[in-house]
Structures are given as structure tokens and as C-alpha cells.
């Protein structure tokens, strides 16, 4: 089935006919809501007066905390996320009230008339400030292997340093959107652009003070998610639901871009402080790291994000003695959340920084030091710091193939030649590996369900628990179902994800969508197949003694072995001329009163995790990749050009190479954006100043090199995963680390070879300014002014 099939909605996409939450046909009497936002990062609310808003024609109601019928909180893990703040504002832009009106314009005008008075309080805006004031959300997390302290003391060489990285806005093209339709009998149909319909359902019910069965949440499709709609959709669905309950009318909300960027959480900025011990050959012998995540004002998903950073601090490297401690800073900013990689990238940036520094200190090439430290062999040297042995280690494979495909060594020589003749522009090439653990760290999330409905004309509705955000999950699920049932894709209608079809689902997150839901879909299809098989046998006039027996198997298994479900027919393996159409079997099943609907279910086996000890086997398997990037840096401006990218990535036996290649390419470019141009800037009042695409720059097509080659690793079937495939959503994001490392190499090349610096403390993102100031600081051998809090600016206008 290795079909390079286009996205199942591709025609809808290109014709504009694909419907998203807020593009549904408007409903009669539908209301819109608009937030009253707080112009302070931290303040006490001293007065809230809504009277003037009611002068605006079309205003129906201003919602405040007093209107919340249930629990005034939308926290996902713990309830620390007040929906309508009553006394304290915790971040700039927090909604303190919402106007409900006949039109969005009326709601906006009314919201502007709500009078709120504040008593400003000092905000905490950086990780450093949170550390200084010991303002943390939780107690520290620790993972330890070996004896890092004594190993550090006895290490041949030691380095101490820190690395800080900025967050990232998701910039999904479709901003947060929800519709809530009350039926007048106490039930609510919610349409939400959410990656986690079940959680949206639970939290809407909690806020309304009703039970989950009163609320149905449906996600038609999302115009991008990337983690930004895992929890962030919930508060907006909740406010719309309250408005719907109070007014009895359908209510819609779609944030404008500025509000979306201002109000919703982002990728966590991180600070890593490390001490590393290593040998003169560049082998790491000990590592001690403190990781601080900027959690923002509430906890949200910060604990698992931090944990994923901690369990990816090793990336692909064996570190015999390691201690990593993690803390979540509480700051007065929007609450940071899931974003592709979920902390993994932040952990891996730290170790890549350390390895580069070791290499430069020892005057070894960074790729050599990387390779020397790879996990290898079996047992101890192939086991992570949290105690999981890497069952199918493909690091060397992707690494060798990527170097070969990219002609790494030849190009390195050519680049040295170029650099020797160009004083003002310098090039560099870098390769970095990715090893990324697949499964939710929280074991209970590793389950999924599906619901298959076959109608008597042979047409089929397929439901599963995953949501479609562009990643092609629905396409893959259709392929899995079609392959398992041996029928054509045209029979299927993929249904919108809905909590009344498949309950108690997990978020479509952690790259797990295809793995979990694919198995559940396959399970449902196999249940149906087992029911259809005896009917097919009857129609094929197959007598029990005509069916070959396979040792030790049941007669049911023998029958399924004998029947071939393919090309919309069912035929006998032994008597290939005997075949019957799928429709005929379905019709007969109905007449024989055999159920034509089935649920499917899956849970990932063999997972374990002890959060107390930080040990276990939290991942079902690992995804691997390696990327080679070449850049050219301009010494006058600090601008860089990405010249060439060559990637080898392991997606197992691809369910759909077109989609998987799209995930690899898109993930890489998103990662490159994070590391090089997407810069979140807050002012000293805590207001996000980069709240629009005019100020927050994601990559355009012009930043993509002509030569950009993606090679999916061949002969890579992954045992135990749906049809041998592998998860692909997040891992490619981290391939972009090669761009950062190449930029570092180019900065180094501005120094004469004998005087190359030992340490290139490149800020992240490596904007032109960061690059030029780093270059200048290295040349003057002084610390650059830009290295201090590069993304907090001082207002001077």
C-alpha cells in the first residue's frame, strides 16, 4: 500500500471548500464573543464595571467570573488556570471579561467600553528573575545515572556554561476557533479547533457544571495545530459555552491574530546550566545539568514538557554519569504549552551546544566528537540515562547515509577553500543527529479507539480518536482501513473527530496519532473481517474441510488465512476462481443479522515509567534522523543563507511517503524558523511586542534552499507498529539543529584557523543581529551586549 496518496482533503483545500470550525454555515441567531484584555502582566483588579458596555447596540451580555456556572478554571493537569480572573491578572492580555453580542464588531466595541481598574504589581518576566525569587511551579525533577559528581571531579577536562533559548509561537494559519450550539435541553454541541476533543469536553462540562455526557465536542479539521491546540483551545470553547448556556443561543469565537498570539501559550523558552567532564578524545564522562523551563503564569502541560526535555538531554549520546534537574519557572506571561517536540528540542539544543564546545576546545571536528559519543553496542553503552535500552539503534545508519548523500567530506574541503578566498562571507557545513522517543510519557495516554460503520450498500464511515491538523492522519487511517479490509478508499467517508463516536481519547500529540489510532482502526477492521469471513465462506461455497488447517490455529484463524480480502472482493486462496464482491458479503451479513459496526481499541504494550526515580521504559521505540546543512554568513550584516540541506530520516515502512516527506520537510523548516528568525520579544511591562506576522517572522519560500533533499531510510520496517511504520510528526523538527550548528561553524570561520574560538555562545534564535554581535564579541574577545536577555527589550518610546 506504499501509496503516495495526496491528503484526503486535498481537493477541498485547493478549492476552498474544506470547512473549518468558523467557516461553517452561520446559524440563525448566532452570537459572537470578544475579550476584555488586561493591559498589565501582573496587577490586582480593583474595579470591574460593565455598565457602559450595555450602551453599545447589539450587546447581549458581558460575561464575568460571576457568570461561571461550574468551576472557574480550565487547567488541564492541575486546576491553577482561572478562566475569569477575579482578583489578580497574571499576564499581559489575560481576558478579565468577555462581551457577547449580535456581531463581532458590536462585541469588540462593547468590550472596549468595559471599565476595569488595576493596581499594577511587579511582574516576573524572565527565567532569571524567577530563579532569583525562587518562583517555581513545582518541586525539582531529577534523573540520575551513575555518579556524576565524582565523575566530574575526576574528569580529564571540565567545562561550565549555560545556554538559553527563546520560545516560539505556533503560528498555525487558523487562529483559535470554537462554536457552541445549545439544544435547549441542557446539551451542548461544541465545534472546536482542538487537538484534544475529550479534554475540551471534560473542561467545558466542568466549567458549565454538568457531566461529560451532556457535551459533545467535534473537531472538523484544524488549520494547523503543532501542539498549540492541545490545551489552548479549551478556554475559548469554555467561554463560548458559558455564553451559549446563558443566552440559549449558538455562540462563535474566532480570535484575531493579535489576540491569538497574545493570549495563548507558546513553546517554552529554556535555560540550561551545565557542567561537563570529558576526555581528551572528546568522550563525555559526566554531565550535570539544570534545566529551567519558562512555564508562564499557569502550569498547563509544563511538567511533561520539562520531563521530555530531561529525557532528551542525551539526544543520541551515551553519557555514563549524568544528572539532570528540572524546574518550571513561574512568570507573568501566557502559559507556555505543547509545541512540536514538546521539550525534546530544548533538551537536545543543550547537549548539541556542549558537544560543539567540547569539539572546539579540543580542536576536533564537531561531527567526530558527535560520532564518538553515540550510543552503541548493547547493554550499558546502548542504554539511556533513564534506564531504557535502545532496542533498535539506527543512529549510525542514518548518520552514515546522511554524510554519504550529502558528500559531506568533499563539501567540507570545498568550503575550506571558499573560506580561504573570501574575507567577508564564510560558509560552514554541519551534521546533527536526532533520536526521539515515541510514546506519551504518561502511560495512560497510550491508548486509542475507533468506530467502523458499514452500510448495506457497502459504503463505510470511519471514526477514530485522532484529529486532523494537516499532518495527514485521516489519510493514513483511511489507508490502514482500506488495506485491512481489502477495499478501495472511495468506499470510505472519514468522519470528523467527535466525542460521541469515540470517547475518552488522548490528545493527537506526541507524534502518536498514526501509531495509536492506526492500530485501533485495524482492530475494528479485523473484528468486522472476522464477522464477514464465515458469510463470505458460505457465499464462496467453501466447506470446512476445504479450508487448509494451520497447525495450532483455530478454525476462525484458518478461515481468515484462507480468505483474501483484496480489491473489493473476497476470494479463496485455495480456489482463486471463487470470489464474491464486498457488497454482496455485506448485504448477506445484514440479512443474516450480523452486526456491521465495530469498535476498535489499542494500548501500547511494554511501557513503564516511575516518576519518582525517573527510570523506566517510557518509549515504545525511537525515531532517528540526521541532517546536513550548509550555510553562508555575511560578515557585514550577520545575515545568513541556507545553501543546502540533506536529510536522512527513519519513518519505518512509510504508510504514505508523500505525507511523511511533507512532515520531514515541514518539521525541518519550522525548526529552522525557531532557531534562526522567529523571535518573541516582550517589553519590560511584559507585553508581547511580536504579536503579528509583521513583527514575528516565520520562514517564507525564499528562505528554502534550492537543494533540499529528503531521503526516507530504506528497509526500516518497525516491528510491532502499524504496518511497520514509525511516528513522524515531531522528530524532524530537531533536524534543524544542523542549521544552528552550521551557523556556529561559519562564525568560527571568520577567525584564522589557528585562532578559532573555543566557545561560540550563539544566542537562539540566531538572528542576523545575534550572529553579528557574536562575531564581533569573539573578534574583540569580549562578551557581547546582545547575549544578555536578547528577547527582553527595554521600552524607550
Amino acid at each position, binding site marked *: 500500500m506504499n501509496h503516495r496518496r495526496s491528503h484526503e482533503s486535498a481537493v477541498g483545500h485547493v478549492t476552498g471548500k474544506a470547512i473549518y470550525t468558523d467557516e461553517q454555515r452561520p446559524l440563525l441567531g448566532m452570537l459572537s464573543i470578544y475579550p476584555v484584555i488586561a493591559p498589565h502582566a501582573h496587577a490586582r483588579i480593583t474595579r470591574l464595571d460593565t455598565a457602559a458596555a450595555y450602551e453599545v447596540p447589539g450587546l447581549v451580555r458581558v460575561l464575568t467570573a460571576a457568570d461561571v456556572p461550574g468551576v472557574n478554571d480550565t487547567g488541564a493537569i492541575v486546576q491553577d488556570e482561572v478562566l475569569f480572573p477575579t482578583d489578580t491578572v497574571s499576564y499581559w492580555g489575560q481576558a478579565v471579561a468577555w462581551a457577547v453580542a449580535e456581531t463581532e464588531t458590536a462585541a469588540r466595541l462593547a468590550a472596549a467600553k468595559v471599565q476595569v481598574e488595576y493596581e499594577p504589581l511587579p511582574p516576573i518576566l524572565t527565567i532569571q528573575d524567577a530563579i532569583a525569587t525562587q518562583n517555581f511551579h513545582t518541586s525539582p525533577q531529577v534523573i540520575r545515572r551513575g555518579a556524576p559528581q565524582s565523575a566530574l571531579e575526576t574528569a580529564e577536562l571540565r567545562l561550565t556554561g549555560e545556554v538559553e533559548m527563546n520560545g516560539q509561537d505556533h503560528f498555525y494559519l487558523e487562529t483559535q476557533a470554537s462554536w457552541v450550539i445549545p439544544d435547549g435541553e441542557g446539551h451542548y454541541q461544541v465545534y472546536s479547533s482542538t487537538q484534544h476533543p475529550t479534554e475540551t469536553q471534560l473542561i467545558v462540562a466542568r466549567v458549565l457544571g454538568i457531566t461529560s455526557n451532556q457535551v459533545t465536542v467535534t473537531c472538523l479539521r484544524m488549520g494547523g495545530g*503543532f501542539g498549540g491546540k492541545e490545551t489552548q483551545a479549551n478556554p475559548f470553547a469554555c467561554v463560548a459555552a458559558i455564553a451559549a448556556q446563558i443566552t440559549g443561543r449558538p455562540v462563535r469565537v474566532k480570535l484575531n491574530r493579535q489576540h491569538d498570539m497574545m493570549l495563548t501559550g507558546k513553546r517554552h523558552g529554556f535555560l540550561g546550566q551545565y557542567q561537563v567532564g570529558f576526555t581528551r578524545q572528546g568522550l563525555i564522562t559526566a554531565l550535570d545539568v539544570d534545566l529551567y523551563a519558562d512555564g508562564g503564569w499557569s502550569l498547563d502541560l509544563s511538567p511533561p514538557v520539562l520531563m521530555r526535555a530531561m529525557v532528551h538531554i542525551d539526544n543520541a549520546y551515551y553519557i555514563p554519569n549524568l544528572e539532570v534537574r528540572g524546574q518550571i519557572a513561574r512568570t507573568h506571561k501566557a502559559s507556555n504549552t505543547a509545541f512540536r517536540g514538546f521539550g525534546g528540542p530544548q533538551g537536545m539544543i543543550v547537549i548539541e551546544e556542549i558537544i560543539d564546545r567540547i569539539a572546539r576546545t579540543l580542536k576536533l571536528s564537531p561531527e567526530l566528537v558527535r560520532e564518538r559519543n553515540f550510543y552503541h553496542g548493547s547493554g550499558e553503552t546502548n542504554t539511556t540515562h533513564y534506564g531504557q535500552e535502545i532496542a533498535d539503534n539506527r543512529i549510525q545508519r542514518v548518520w552514515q547515509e546522511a554524510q554519504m548523500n550529502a558528500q559531506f567530506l568533499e563539501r567540507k574541503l570545498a568550503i575550506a577553500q571558499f573560506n580561504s578566498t573570501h574575507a567577508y562571507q564564510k560558509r560552514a557545513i554541519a551534521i546533527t543527529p536526532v533520536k526521539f522517543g515515541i510514546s506519551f510519557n504518561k502511560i495512560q495516554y497510550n491508548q486509542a479507539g475507533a468506530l467502523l460503520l458499514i452500510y448495506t450498500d457497502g459504503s463505510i464511515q470511519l471514526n477514530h480518536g485522532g484529529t486532523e491538523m494537516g499532518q495527514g492522519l485521516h489519510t493514513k487511517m483511511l489507508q490502514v482501513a482500506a488495506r485491512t479490509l481489502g477495499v478501495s478508499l472511495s468506499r470510505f467517508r472519514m468522519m470528523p473527530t467527535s466525542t460521541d463516536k469515540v470517547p475518552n481519547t488522548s490528545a493527537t500529540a506526541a507524534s502518536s496519532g498514526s501509531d495509536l489510532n492506526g492500530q485501533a482502526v485495524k482492530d475494528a477492521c479485523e473484528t468486522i473481517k472476522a464477522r464477514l469471513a464465515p458469510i463470505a465462506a458460505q457465499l464462496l461455497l467453501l466447506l470446512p474441510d476445504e479450508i487448509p488447517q494451520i497447525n495450532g490455529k483455530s478454525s476462525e484463524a484458518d478461515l481468515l488465512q484462507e480468505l483474501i480480502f483484496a480489491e473489493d472482493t473476497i476470494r479463496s486462496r485455495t480456489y482463486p476462481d471463487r470470489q464474491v464482491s464486498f457488497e454482496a458479503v455485506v448485504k448477506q451479513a445484514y440479512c443474516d443479522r450480523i452486526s456491521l459496526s465495530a469498535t476498535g481499541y489499542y494500548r501500547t504494550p511494554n511501557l513503564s515509567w516511575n516518576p519518582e526515580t525517573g527510570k523506566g521504559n517510557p518509549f515504545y521505540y525511537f525515531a532517528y534522523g540526521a541532517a546536513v546543512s550548509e550555510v553562508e554568513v555575511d560578515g557585514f550584516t550577520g545575515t545568513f543563507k541556507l545553501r543546502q540541506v540533506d536529510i536522512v530520516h527513519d519513518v519505518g515502512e512509510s504508510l504514505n511517503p508523500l505525507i511523511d516527506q511533507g512532515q520531514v520537510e515541514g518539521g525541518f523548516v519550522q525548526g529552522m524558523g525557531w532557531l534562526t528568525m522567529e523571535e518573541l520579544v516582550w517589553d519590560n511591562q511584559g507585553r508581547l511586542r511580536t504579536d503579528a506576522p509583521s513583527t514575528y517572522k516565520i520562514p517564507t519560500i525564499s528562505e528554502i534552499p534550492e537543494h533540499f533533499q529528503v531521503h526516507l531510510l530504506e528497509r526500516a520496517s518497525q516491528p510491532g507498529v502499524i504496518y511497520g511504520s514509525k511516528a513522524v510528526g515531531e522528530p524532524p523538527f530537531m533536524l534543524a539543529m544542523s542549521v544552528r550548528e552550521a551557523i556556529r561553524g561559519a562564525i568560527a570561520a571568520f577567525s584564522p584557523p589557528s585562532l578559532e574560538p573555543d566557545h561560540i555562545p550563539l544566542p537562539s534564535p540566531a538572528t542576523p543581529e545575534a550572529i*553579528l554581535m557574536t562575531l564581533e564579541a569573539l573578534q574583540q574577545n569580549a562578551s557581547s551586549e546582545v547575549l544578555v536577555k536578547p528577547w527582553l527589550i527595554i521600552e524607550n518610546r
Partner: protein
Amino acid sequence: MPPTPLTFTLNGQTLYLQDVSPSMTLLRYLQQSDRTGTKEGCGDGDCGACTVAILGQDANGNPQYQAMNSCLIPLGAIAGRHIVTVEGLTVEGLAESELHPVQAAMVATGGSQCGYCTPGFIMSLFAAYYEGKVDDLSVEGNLCRCTGYLPIRRAAQAVMQEQAARGSIAAPGDRFATALSQAPVSLPPLDYRSVTQQFYRPTHLQILLELLQQHPQATLLAGGTDLGLDMSHDRRSFPLLISLEAIPELQAIEQTDTQVEIGAAVPLSRIETQLHGLFPALDEMLHWFAARQVRNRATLGGNIGTASPIGDLPPVLLALDATLQLASLQGTRRVAIADFFTGYRQTILQPGEVIVSIQIPQTLFPGAVRRISNSYKVGKRGTDDISIVAAAFTIDLDEGDRIHHARLAYGGVAATPIRAIAVENWLLGKPWSLDTVQQAKPLLQEVFTPLTDLRGSAAYRKRLVANLFEKFFVEESS
């Protein structure tokens, strides 16, 4: 007599709108009339999700589909025009095989993932398709967060290959190609009134000046790529808008041996093609000026008239010693652009006065034998970004390769676009050498006191002011 309706053609159907706000954006109108194919990604003209095609004219006056951001264009500005949206590319009930070639290519290459940006890409590709040049530049104003653009690039390449194989831009019977073969539509005058708003589109300069005299509070609308931002989020209402799009004097490009005169309301994309090769500094800056959708609408006069310190083109015009022709009922006057800006978003324009045209001399400074000139723009992102610093340089050399005339002009470093006059004077008579340039650098670093803002620090800006001049020397000398 019933009031005149606002009329335009949408996907072949003529619409007559009564009592709509003429400053309502086209995007908002499409949304409210349940045409949801066109998407809003930002409402700022920066993401391209709302791209539609407008039937305009190319540099030769022939009909041409032009991509533009529907979030920035008010209904008044599209009166009398033909618009194609994504819904217009396919006919209801047609099979998948009857997708437009750019749609079919995007399906085949996996050019859509979440699909939300896709209609905008389709319309950019559509407009480029009928120009016979579908490439990266066609979609540089469209943001996609999912694909990393590679399958979209493949779709563009596939379309180009298809056209090459066929030997013609469009297949026989292509209804859009047929529309392009018709005579161009000239914009009629417009006097549209809603209950609270009025929209004029005069077709004579004299009438424009009279209108301005009568209505000093009126807001002038050229391409609307700046003013449209205010309309997009319906934050501001404009009681009286006057469009500059249909006035011949403002739409002309005149070229003589000694100068080029560009009408103030000529869209930048026309300048880009029509004047290509004349002024390297202008070519270079236009390349980095926003993106295709914006250049199809934005005008040179608008870029000057808004007097933004980060406008891209004023530094170029300063470096080229451009002059401006201004007109009001009181008469006309010609001023040097260096005298035009008086403060942050302030100019010498008097009430009732407009910029008619911009003159750029084509001659060297008297006594010079050779000119070196170019421009530079540095942003966080190379493409479609607002500059941290923009710079344009002109150096005229005498026979001894000494600097005879110097213009070093910058954007993003002061309250207005500005020249480094002290350094220009210091350079005069000095040899055009790396040594001279390196001596000038410390002077340049100190000549301005730029601000720190979200785009860049004052320190970085100061370095760019100096480094860009050295870059200019090195690149132009090699």
C-alpha cells in the same frame, strides 16, 4: 433618485451593493456573504491566506491577473473591477479532473497539509500562471506553516513544465485566458455614498484638487497597503475616502534622456518591470519590498507620503536625488525629497496638496564620470520583512576615481528617512578606496542615534549603518 450602488464583478457575476461601507475590506465582505474559501490568517497583509486575483493591467496596458491581499483592499477600491476568488476557479459539480492546473498540481505534489493557507497560494499561483512565470517569487507573500514550501515549489515547477510542454501559457478554451484577451477595463469615476461614508474616485487631477479643497478632512487612498491595515480590523472608519487610482497624471511613467518621472499612484510592480535596469538601487530595493501581493497595490507616492522612517524606497530616492512634484489648487511646486520629510510621519505637504509624481535624474552629478549605486535592506527575515536598517548609496567618481558626489541614505535609524550628510561631505574629494571607507565607518557609527525596538537594538543598527557602506564598497569593487 436611488443612490448609486457599488458595483463590481466577482467570479464572473456582477454584484450591485447598496449601503455597504466602502471602507469594508473585500475579505470581510466575502466572509459576511458566506464565501469562506478565502481565509483570514492575519488581517495585516502579511500572510497571504486571503489572496485573490484582480483583473488589472500590465506595464503595456494589457489585462493581467494580479494577486493581492483582500484583507487590505476596501470595497470602494474594487468598484468597477473584476475579482477572482478561489471559488471562481472551479465550477460547482465539476469532477476532480477539472481542477484548474495550479490546483491539480498542488493536489499531486502534496502542496496542502492543513489547507488553511492553500486558497491564498492557489490564487498567487493562478495569477502567476497567466503570466507564464510561476516560481518562488510568485508565492513569497504567502505563509505556510506546515509544508516547508517544498511541495509548493514542486507544484510551481510542474505547472511550468506543463506550460513548456504545451508551448503556450493556457490550454485551449481556458476561460480565464479568454477573459485576458478582452480589452482592458478602464476605471470609471465613482461617487459612492453609504449612510455615513463617502467614496470618491475622480478621473482628473483638477477634480481631485477641488475635492481636496472642499473636503480637507478627506483621506487619500492609493494602494491602501498601509491605510488598509486600519480598515482590516475595522478599527477606524473613514467618512470620506478619495481614491487616486484613476487619475492619469498619477498613473504615468515618463522617461526622457535626463530623467524618469513616475506617477505617484503607479503600483510598484509596474515600476519593477517597466524601469528594470535603469537604477540598480531601485531594482534591488523593490526586490526586497514586501511581497508580490503588496507590490501589486502599493505605490511610490504612498511609500513617500506615509513618511514612515522604515519605508523602503525613500532611502533609494534620497540616494538618487529624486524630486517630488506637488500640486494643489494654489499651484504646483517641485521639492527635493531631502526637504520633504520634517519629522516622524510628518511632511511639508500642505492641506489640499498631493504628490503628483516623482522625478529621478538619470544624469551623473556634473563633473563626474562614473556612478556606483546600490541599496541594501536588513531584516530578521530576508523576504517580506520590515527593515531593521535600509540603506542606499550613490557615489559619483571623477576621472581620478575620487569621490565627486556622495549620497548615503538610510531608513530605520531616525525619525525620518535620512542622509548622513556630514559623512557625505567628509567623503568628497577622497579616493574611492577601502581605506577611505574604513575611515568613514567610525564616523557613520556615530552619525545617527537609532532606537532599540523589537526589530533590533540601537547597537546593531549603528553597526549596520557603517557595515552596509563597507559592504557596498566591497561588492561594487569586486
